[in-house]
């Protein structure tokens, strides 16, 4: 299998993306910022299609859109993001805009056979050229390195923001930087498994890890591990059964791990699951 170029390239590009995605995903779930991932996935699609419609490299639009969106999210802060009706309507519009760009592109000189929608939404990890794969690997590797450097302060800032700020950590910069990293990884992941399935490498393995352990560093490692396993096993699966698209195979593995995490016997946590605002209407007694 590894003799095949497209497999090798898929794994070369995919590995750092998955490792980064899993780790970033851990923080995303921890920081209750999964919605940000959703936002970025929508924006990624529209950005890519906008670039295509204009006639420039898709990746340009992809990265530009996600990074700008991430910085906007960071600037707007938590409050703006809590209105899910507003966000949902906005995101639907973003997708609608993407549909327009899709139309424009399809009608333009470069308008192809309609494969671009499938590629952007569901990825093309088996269709990477050598330079594509190398670029993705380098950027992905850089994300991993940066994340490794800021992981500990980010954890600190997430769990205990006030104390962290008091001890001199630049909370706002960390938050913004984190979201920017997510944006870059989102763009990379979109190329691999598509905008619609992006959360499959970012949030799902992390969700599974969160269910299995409350130990932060262990969960972080597990997230990356699960994401990596999803990638590799997914690629193998898609290779063995060619009628399964690779992105679907990867999601299938990730979902299986996730389900296992929910079904497996839970270890007792010292911090029990929060049940909300504490308004006990029927009080135990």
């Amino acid at each position: 299998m590894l003799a095949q170029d497209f497999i090798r390239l898929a794994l070369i590009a995919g590995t750092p993306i998955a490792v980064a995605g899993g780790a970033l995903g851990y923080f995303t779930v921890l920081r209750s910022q999964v919605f940000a991932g959703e936002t970025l996935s929508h924006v990624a699609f529209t950005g890519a299609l906008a670039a295509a419609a204009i006639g420039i490299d898709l990746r340009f639009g992809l990265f530009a859109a996600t990074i700008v969106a991430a910085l906007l999210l960071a600037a707007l802060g938590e409050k703006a993001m809590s209105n899910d009706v507003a966000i949902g309507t906005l995101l639907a519009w973003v997708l609608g805009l993407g549909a327009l760009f899709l139309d424009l592109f399809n009608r333009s000189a470069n308008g192809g056979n309609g494969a671009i929608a499938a590629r952007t939404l569901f990825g093309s990890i088996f269709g990477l050229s050598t330079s594509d794969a190398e670029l993705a690997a380098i950027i992905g590797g850089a994300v991993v390195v940066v994340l490794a450097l800021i992981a500990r302060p980010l954890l600190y800032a997430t769990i205990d923001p006030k104390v962290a700020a008091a001890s001199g950590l630049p909370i706002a910069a960390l938050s913004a930087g984190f979201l920017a990293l997510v944006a870059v990884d989102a763009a990379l992941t979109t190329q691999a498994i598509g905008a619609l399935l992006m959360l499959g490498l970012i949030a799902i393995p992390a969700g599974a890890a969160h269910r299995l352990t409350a130990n932060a560093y262990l969960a972080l490692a597990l997230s990356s591990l699960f994401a990596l396993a999803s990638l590799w096993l997914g690629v193998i699966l898609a290779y063995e059964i060619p009628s399964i698209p690779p992105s679907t195979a990867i999601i299938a593995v990730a979902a299986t791990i996730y389900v296992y995490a929910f079904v497996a016997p839970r270890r007792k946590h010292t911090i029990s699951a929060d049940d909300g605002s504490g308004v006990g209407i029927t009080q135990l007694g």
Partner: protein
Amino acid sequence: MLAPEDEETEASSSTAQPAIELRGVTVARAGRPVWRGANVTIEQGEFVAVLGPNGSGKSTLLDLLLGLLDPAEGSVSVLGGSPGRGEQIGYLPQRHAFDQTTRIRGVDIVRLGLDGTRFGLPLPWQNAHRKKVDGAIDVVGASAYARRPIGECSGGEQQRLLIARTLIGSPKLLLLDEPLDSLDLPNQSSVSALVDRIRRERHMTVLLVAHDVNPLLPYLDRVIYIAGGRVLAGRPEEVITSETLSDLYDSPIEVLHTSDGRLVVVGLPEAPAHHHDRHAHP
């Protein structure tokens, strides 16, 4: 003990029979007893506060009176009959405040107190309802803001509107579960005064669950204190004393009287979730 056991008059003139009567009642949740051996009689027209630490079973008492829970032992009668939600009981459950996203007008919420659970389309020509709704809103003094979205009203205003909703069926018995909880002190006082005024005007019996007895003290006829798996009922000055509470909690409690007439209870243990665990008395 302190529960004055009035004799039950067999003469069933509704003015003479007690509003609430518990005899030897034990309630349990999930198989474990919450409190036992409660003997309580509340006369019609009384204003009663239900006090006790978190988790002691105050809301359980309300559930019992509403017929949402059956007693494990003993008998309960409400307004001369068995417990059960009827038109005669107005219930205001504990709830968090409506937030900004609840864009429904207060007046509509009050109106729903009248016919909210009925199936079918509301018919636009039911003017009798309109009068009742406006009347209830008037009584609680909420006319100025009843037509605003309730999420934009303050805590005190929301509480008044909810009380109007509870009143709209002209109940004889009002059960209020921690209505003062999230209000600031001035609102606690004014809502307490409001409840008392309505009670007297309409000859209602009121059972109000509270954390702090002080806003209610000027109006209370009786206190029901639930703690340590036991239920005590009596006049405030009988129940809220150092001796009584120390006995109830099985640990030293002091009740202090401030110069302006407030009661301060000192020495309460941190409220554990399950009182019946530490309860040794039968």
